[in-house]
């Protein structure tokens, strides 16, 4: 069984830390894992996509999730969630998205429009399995505006990717402790727990 997760956002939002937590989670669960990241120019405010594949009992080959095969999309920005929709499995896929839009430059310059029905479209795609919330507001409320990633992970923990594969909260928290710097751990855990409770 391989669980495929796509993490998308805008360069600089903290997607790399989210994938690191998922990697640590896989290690804690004794599973195989592959993560594919993009560094460099794509991090300068462009679309970024991270592929996470966690497996058990069968080899994980490709470091990339195939289109149509992601069990979950974790999105730091709604437009990026929409862009990643083709990765989602045709049925039963899960979308966790921040609702705070970041308009791309083409929208800022007036060359393109930011679609106003993004969440509706996501609901269509995922057959209703969409958790959309203002992760930035939540993180800011707890005094950790950089912790949008932990807010999204909290929502992911609240809605297991597969019904037969629920990961105990304590394992999540150990994985977070493995991946985030010790001095920000308390703030990150607070955001994670609040998002978990809010979206459960």
């Amino acid at each position, binding site marked *: 069984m391989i669980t495929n997760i796509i993490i998308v956002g805008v360069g600089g939002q903290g997607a790399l830390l989210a994938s690191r937590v998922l990697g640590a989670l*896989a290690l804690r669960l004794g599973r195989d894992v592959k993560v594919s990241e993009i560094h460099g*120019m794509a991090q300068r405010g462009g679309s970024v996509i991270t592929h996470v594949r966690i497996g058990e009992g069968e080899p994980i080959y490709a470091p990339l999730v195939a289109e149509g095969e992601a069990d979950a999309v974790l999105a730091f920005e709604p437009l990026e969630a929409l862009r990643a929709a083709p990765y989602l499995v045709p049925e039963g896929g899960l979308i966790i998205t921040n609702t705070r839009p970041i308009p791309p430059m083409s929208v*800022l310059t007036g060359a393109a429009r930011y679609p106003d029905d993004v969440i509706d479209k996501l609901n269509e795609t995922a057959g209703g399995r969409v958790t959309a919330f203002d992760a930035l507001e939540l993180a800011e409320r707890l005094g950790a505006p950089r912790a949008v990633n932990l807010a999204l992970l909290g929502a992911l923990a609240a809605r297991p990717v597969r019904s037969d594969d629920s990961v105990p909260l304590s394992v999540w928290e150990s994985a977070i402790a493995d991946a985030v710097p010790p001095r920000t751990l308390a703030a990150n855990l607070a955001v994670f727990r609040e998002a978990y409770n809010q979206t459960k």
Partner: protein
Amino acid sequence: MPDKKLMLGNEAIARGAWEAGCGVVASYPGTPSTEITEAAASYGEMDVEWSVNEKVAMEIAAGASIGGARTLTCMKHVGLNVAADPLFTLAYTGVNAGLVVVVADDPGVHSSQNEQDSRFYARSAHLPMLIPADAQECLAFTKLAFELSERFDTPVMIGACTRIAHARSLVQTGGRVERDLPEWKRNPAKYVMLPGPARARHLALEDRERRVREEAGIGEWAYSIEDNGGAVGVICSGTAYHYVKEAMPEASVLKLNLVYPLPERAVARFASMVERLFVVEELEPFIEDAVRAMGVECSGKDRTGRQGELSVNRVRAAFADLPGVKRDAARADVTEPPARPPAMCAGCPHRAVFYTLAKRKLTVSGDIGCYTLGMLPPHGAMDACLCMGASIGMAAGLHKARGDDFARRTVAVIGDSTFMHSGMTALLDAVYNRSSLTLLILDNRITGMTGHQHNPASGFDIHGEPANAVDLEAVCRALGVTRVRSLDPFDLDALNSALSEETAFDGVSVIISRRPCALLDKKRRPPVAVEGCRKCGACMKLGCPALSKDKGGAVIVDPAQCVGCGLCARVCPFQAIHDAEAVKV
């Protein structure tokens, strides 16, 4: 798997070098190779440096190897172009201690100016080249490369790409095997490449390549065969191996660890096992052509194409007619949302420069770095960009073709790290040959695009320890430039008058635009505030990601993105934007 670590391919290469007893690492940063050298710097036993460019890094590697230390040098594909000169002759001299050259390609052009295929360097310079497929192989092949390098007396190349270098997978690590420094022995006939010794070494090179090819054809280190029956066979290596395993589960597979020289005996044996033979590889038909040259019938590129990265979906589509190839799942049909290419960060010092260059409608000869983004809207202020350091030579060429009047409307722009990498020689040339150009050195105190590496102007070494900080003004003067000035680009008046005066000057002049990268500025300033916006749109010409318009057309600030740099307040003709200090009442 409790004893395994989740490592980037790049981290695993550094680990492999460390375990192999490598003593020296010299590299120039370049996506996707940068993290190898960064990770190497965390191991105390190795002498690790950011070199000033890839050619210098390769030469340091050559000297260290001749001197008896196992040595690693890492670069991106286009960096190997810069280092090609020493590399081709290093193939003749061979090594003393093992010398491994890592080159990371960028199929799909995530962060580069082309998608050249570095495997051709191996063939052209006659160097063995290994291609790992995951992080564990990155570690193992690096150790193997050092062994091969010493066994066959040759530099050995390791080829990576984005999906190897920047992919994490589980790695079993080991300990370091220390190596004693051998006694120094002179050997000019091997290491001084005058024509006489070079002729002899060329013969030695051919003999060595024959021996590598022979051993590779029967050596398990060079390939592996997975026999799934004889209907379809696929030859592949690196990332393509994983895509093939997933997309074509019924195919027999010959996985090449060594792509040059081709393990010909293994290829011939595999070809005889299968009815239909395909090659699946990214970029050029490198393996396919070599297999064909053996007289073995095969195909692949006619199906997969040469551009971009492969993927499971792409391999499935290319071989959909073959038995056992699964069809793709149905995909969500969403209209493509507006694209989001990279953009200069909020607070970026380059924004002030490109806003000004666009406003003045100057012709801009560009270079490689974050500032290449000045080409994109809303600035659109770049007319050419070729490779590291090319901005200055191209500006000189524009002057030669179009004369003084054109030069008065032209500038070259180059970053601090890029200037030291390969811009200084071009500036020397421009002065020497009486060119007329205005050069803007965008000194943001760091190598930005690749993720903040120190360089000779930053004043720190790879470990963050204080180092000599080169005086860029003095360098330009020493190269013969008489008009050199420096300014803060956020002082738009100073920038404008400098541009007016220096472009009017017929000769070479340099403006050093100095302000640290916004990401280095840890001081959190409160966001700017807008009050009484007149909707003129002047600030929107900055292309700042923190500024947008509300439904009525008034400018609004995203406090999550704004770093309070205040550049928008400076360009607002109605003083409607305030630095937070100014509105704090």
